[in-house]
């Protein structure tokens, strides 16, 4: 009986898979924190024979190289992949047989030029599932603009054909197992299903329902949102054969050491809830709340090889953040501290950040503050505060100089998470920030002037 187990990484919107016949196992697209895979392998007493990559990843550091080294499994990539290490190179039509598992290699370019899908069959030849990586996703497809702007149109055409090819060669009941989706920026559109089959994809996958290739490509390219800047570092890192993530925290820092780190230019991230940070924090630290989006926002803001210090409520939060950041190659952890063990009361760098709501903003006059919207372009376009100035979060680091000095900056986003990080960036740059801890969802126009206009 063949089983496919999914190992989810919700903070990146990715899945890895382990497939087994009960004795032998194959892992597809593992993340860098190997303990999750190894726990499965050890609990079930399996022999890991192969580690497969569907592609050289752009959104995370692979655990594949380290996993293969650690277990002696065969590390499988496209024979045409330009990588620094030995691997078993495969090509379209190849077959991998291990125990009761047969995996057929299908070249499905699009997300990347050398992208592969692996169709899983049992020994009778019956197709059971297909690991589609970044090609066919649940009701979506992997984006095609991550490799090179000059290649995007060609890759989009390839993606269309690759998804159609998978649907042509595999029967309806075959389960689809993609790597991307679930909130990942690698997905061209948001995916909503949590399981699917080839048959289900026929009903709404954009590549399968589009009238023609041209319509598909236009829709794909016009709907793409910004992707995190750290992506540029991932493929080179993956090609070099990255080592596994070691869940070891550096020694805890005291307040003077934290202050020294801030002064030395380290990126000190305070993981606490926005209200705790707003109540009391150290100037120069940034409020990157511990949420699924942490890697995305850190990846947009912090230079790739920057030294970081993590401050959190407790050791568990700090360890979780360390793991999430290591998955995207952010591993220069220069220190950490649990805020509950620190006392910076009365310190010259102690600050508080006012936390307010849109109703409070309504009580201020336009000339006594700046209103800053840090949401993405599509969110701003759907509606925004009438007095707001727009700097999408991912551009903030470069454009902070555009914010007029000398008056408080009221920062908002959709739910307040990007806003608190943005407000702390502004404070570090010398502004007085106010966090609008309130909701401005797509289509909303906050503010009493807007409400009055709507009522009349």
């Amino acid at each position, binding site marked *: 009986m063949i089983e496919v187990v999914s190992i989810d990484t919700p903070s990146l919107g990715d899945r890895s898979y382990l497939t087994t016949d009960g004795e032998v196992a194959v892992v597809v697209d593992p993340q860098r924190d190997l303990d999750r895979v190894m726990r499965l392998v050890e609990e079930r007493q399996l022999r890991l024979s192969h580690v497969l990559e569907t592609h050289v990843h752009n959104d995370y550091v692979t655990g594949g190289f380290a996993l293969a080294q650690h277990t002696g499994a065969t590390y499988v990539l496209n024979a045409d992949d330009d990588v620094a290490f030995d691997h078993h190179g495969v090509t379209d039509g190849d077959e991998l047989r291990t125990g009761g598992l047969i995996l057929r290699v299908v070249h499905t370019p699009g997300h990347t030029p050398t992208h592969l899908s692996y169709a899983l069959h049992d020994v009778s030849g019956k197709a059971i599932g297909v690991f589609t990586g970044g090609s066919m996703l649940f009701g979506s497809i992997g984006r095609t603009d991550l490799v090179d702007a000059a290649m995007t149109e060609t890759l989009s055409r390839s993606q269309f054909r690759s998804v159609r090819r998978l649907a042509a060669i595999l029967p309806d009941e075959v389960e689809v197992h993609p790597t991307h989706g*679930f909130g990942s920026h690698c997905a061209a559109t948001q995916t909503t299903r949590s399981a699917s089959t080839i048959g289900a994809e026929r009903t709404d996958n954009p590549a399968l329902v589009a009238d023609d290739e041209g319509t598909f490509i236009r829709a794909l390219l016009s709907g793409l949102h910004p992707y995190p800047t750290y992506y540029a570092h991932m493929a080179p890192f993956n090609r070099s054969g990255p080592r596994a993530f070691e869940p070891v925290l550096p020694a805890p820092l005291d307040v003077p050491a934290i202050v020294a780190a801030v002064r030395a230019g380290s990126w000190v991230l305070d993981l606490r809830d926005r209200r705790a940070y707003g109540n009391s924090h150290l100037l120069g630290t940034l409020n990157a709340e511990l*949420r699924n989006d942490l890697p995305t926002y850190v990846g947009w803001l912090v230079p790739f090889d920057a030294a970081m210090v993590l401050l959190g409520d407790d050791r568990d939060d700090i360890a979780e953040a360390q793991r999430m950041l290591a998955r995207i190659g952010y591993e220069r952890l220069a220190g950490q501290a649990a805020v509950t063990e620190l006392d910076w009361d009365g310190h010259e760098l102690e600050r508080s950040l006012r936390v307010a709501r849109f109703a409070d903003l309504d009580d201020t006059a336009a000339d006594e503050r700046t209103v800053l919207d840090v949401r993405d372009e599509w969110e701003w376009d759907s509606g925004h505060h009438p007095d707001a100035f727009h700097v999408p979060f991912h551009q903030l680091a470069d454009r902070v100089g555009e914010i007029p000095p000398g008056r408080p900056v009221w920062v908002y986003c959709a739910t307040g998470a990007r806003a608190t990080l943005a407000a702390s960036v502004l404070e570090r740059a010398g502004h007085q920030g106010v966090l609008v801890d309130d909701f401005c969802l797509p289509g909303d126009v906050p503010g009493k002037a807007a409400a009055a206009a709507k009522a009349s």
Partner: protein
Amino acid sequence: MTAVTKTLDASGLACPMPIVRTRQALDGLATGDVLELISTDRGSWRDVPAWAESTGNPLLESREEDGRFIFLIQKA
């Protein structure tokens, strides 16, 4: 056990989509109906109660189960 009128599985959706979908789902319900929201976004643990309070829709229950966050929200 509170009776659930509708379940919204927002698993895999990233901020702000869980709240956006919740609002859409509640718009389609009648006063007194209960929406069950399932989210894998850790930020939901903070966002959903805050949104419920901000919009006056009572949050009847919230719990964590195997990495998923489950909320019962009543339409006011």
